[in-house]
């Protein structure tokens, strides 16, 4: 018997202490297919229904993966696989409404979108010869109203919210009573139902201006009641994220507190603050109830936010459905079109916010 140097002794089968029995790599896929097939076959006997099928497949899969892993692998891996399956199912459940809503709005609204829809005011024309009312779709009054009402609300909310956040983070001591009061009020405001904000603005303007005091400004006030707490909260978080080191670095250069806040703290936090503001705008741009109460609704073009009812896209989507004109189908179409337009505007805002945040973000290379 000769052995060469470097030969490994191979008489004893070496079992690594680091490996353990494990299921084949694609077991999840196979089990899922099997669960789908079994539950599908069982359902065919009693009557097929896709929703029940999906639920049955999910339940069957969770049980199958848990049991097989428990049998072949060990308890820890079984728990891991079951938890993984549950989390995935929860994720799918969560995106179903999102995808479904977007899809429905897209499919139903896309036919309505045209240059005319965006650039014309919706009108009903009466033909005296045939006594017919024809509805020309148009959302210009709602687009203008949306931008004006949301814009004014933003102009009111951002300074108030940002200054409140600066006070809370930079000036108020942790023991300050005012700080606690402000924080508490912001928390309360966060929970105000939007309809209450609308009633507040409406009654405020009724007191000041008189009855039937519908106006875009009133709706803006209602929206800013909803926006301010969001802006305060998000800006506060962002300002707190700015390291104390940077403030001290500025102070040590003999920079005053106010300039430090403006040129160092705000400048460093601006990407996050902008994102927070845009989220707040996106949150209120779709508000219907408060705008409906405070600004009412109208088919007429009214670009003056101080006088008379104004329309927004969200309200148009609601009224088009709830209070259709003579031509019910056309009004409903208009509602879907304005809903889609609203979704597009929100997405555009989000993209703009991302770009702005990217531009101002601290760079490292």
């Amino acid at each position, binding site marked *: 018997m000769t052995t060469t140097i470097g030969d490994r002794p191979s008489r004893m089968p070496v079992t690594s202490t680091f490996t353990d029995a494990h299921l084949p790599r694609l077991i999840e896929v196979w089990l899922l297919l099997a669960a789908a097939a079994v539950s599908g076959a069982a359902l065919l006997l009693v009557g097929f229904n896709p929703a029940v099928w999906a639920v049955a497949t999910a339940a069957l899969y969770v049980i199958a993966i848990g049991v097989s892993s428990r049998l072949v692998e060990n308890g820890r891996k079984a728990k891991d696989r079951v938890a993984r399956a549950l989390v995935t199912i929860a994720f799918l459940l969560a995106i179903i409404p999102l995808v479904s809503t977007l899809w429905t709005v897209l499919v139903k609204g896309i036919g309505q979108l045209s240059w005319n829809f965006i650039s014309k005011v919706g009108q009903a024309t009466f033909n005296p010869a045939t006594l017919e009312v024809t509805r020309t779709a148009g959302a210009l009054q709602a687009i203008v109203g949306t931008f004006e009402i949301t814009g004014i609300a933003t102009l009111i909310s951002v300074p108030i919210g940002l200054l409140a956040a600066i006070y809370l983070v930079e000036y108020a001591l942790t023991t300050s009573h005012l700080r606690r009061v402000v924080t508490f009020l912001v928390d309360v405001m966060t929970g105000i139902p939007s309809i209450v904000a609308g009633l507040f603005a409406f009654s405020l303007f009724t007191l000041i201006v008189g009855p039937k005091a519908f106006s875009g400004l009133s709706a803006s006030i209602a929206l800013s009641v909803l926006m301010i707490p969001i802006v305060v909260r998000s800006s506060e978080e962002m300002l707190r994220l700015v390291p104390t080191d940077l403030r001290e670095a500025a102070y*040590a*250069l003999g920079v005053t507190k106010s300039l*430090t806040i403006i040129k160092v703290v705000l400048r460093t936090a601006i990407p996050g603050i902008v994102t927070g503001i845009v989220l707040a705008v996106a949150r209120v741009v779709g508000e219907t109830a408060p705008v409906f109460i405070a600004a009412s609704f109208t088919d007429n073009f009214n670009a003056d936010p101080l006088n008379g009812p104004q329309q927004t896209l969200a309200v148009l989507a609601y009224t088009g459905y709830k209070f259709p004109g003579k031509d019910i189908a056309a009004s409903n179409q208009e509602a879907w079109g304005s809903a889609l337009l609203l979704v597009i505007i929100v997405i555009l805002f989000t993209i703009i916010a991302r770009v702005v945040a990217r531009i101002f973000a601290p760079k490292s290379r």
Partner: protein
Amino acid sequence: MSKRIEVHDLNVYYGDFLALEDVSLQIEPRSVTAFIGPSGCGKSTLLRTLNRMHEVVPGAHVEGEVLIGGNDLYAPGVDPVLVRRQVGMVFQRPNPFPTMSIRENVLAGVKLNNRKISKADSDDLVESSLKGANLWSEVQDRLHKPGASLSGGQQQRLCIARAIAVSPEVVLMDEPCSALDPISTLAIEDLIEELKQEYTIVIVTHNMQQASRVSDKTAFFNIAGAGKPGKLIEYDDTDTIFSRPSVQATEDYVSGKFG
């Protein structure tokens, strides 16, 4: 330009808590003074009282006086902002402004204060400050890159350049090398040696070799126990402190018997 620092009977409080008790010492212009001592003994606190940076903590206040160039920092009517323009500071962790380029970081003291400066003057200031911080040759062709793109040691020298760009009388350094590797530490120590020609430098350090290498005088601080105030135990020439200190606690500390 550099000035003498005199501290007389100084007590420093954070709220009701006495952090540092009865400190008196004199720091000569154009010298390097090291503060050493165990954690919590108040050496950083004392450093921060020299440019009123401790006031960033709410409730911090002092008794006694601190004179820089004969002027009391704590006299009524003294503006901490003006104090800090003349007493610069470098921190433990390099903290260049992340939104600014290297050049803007050096000019931060000027620009953040809304002072107007011509292009030529600012170019000169950037070059002289970066040269003063031994960083010019490494960054001269990428002044418009972000300050955060530099290595830790370079960032710390950038912070020193930023501090000396406002031409202070005194430069305070709070453990400037504790986050740096040995090579960068050496670079900073060489720089301190050069800066001493022009500025009064006070450095807090946990590294006793560093104190013995860079400083002319050393102050040893100690604390009797948690919750007790820190005290100045001994203040003398660095050679004396490290070779024949007059207090037993100092000898124990510098020889590594405690702390």
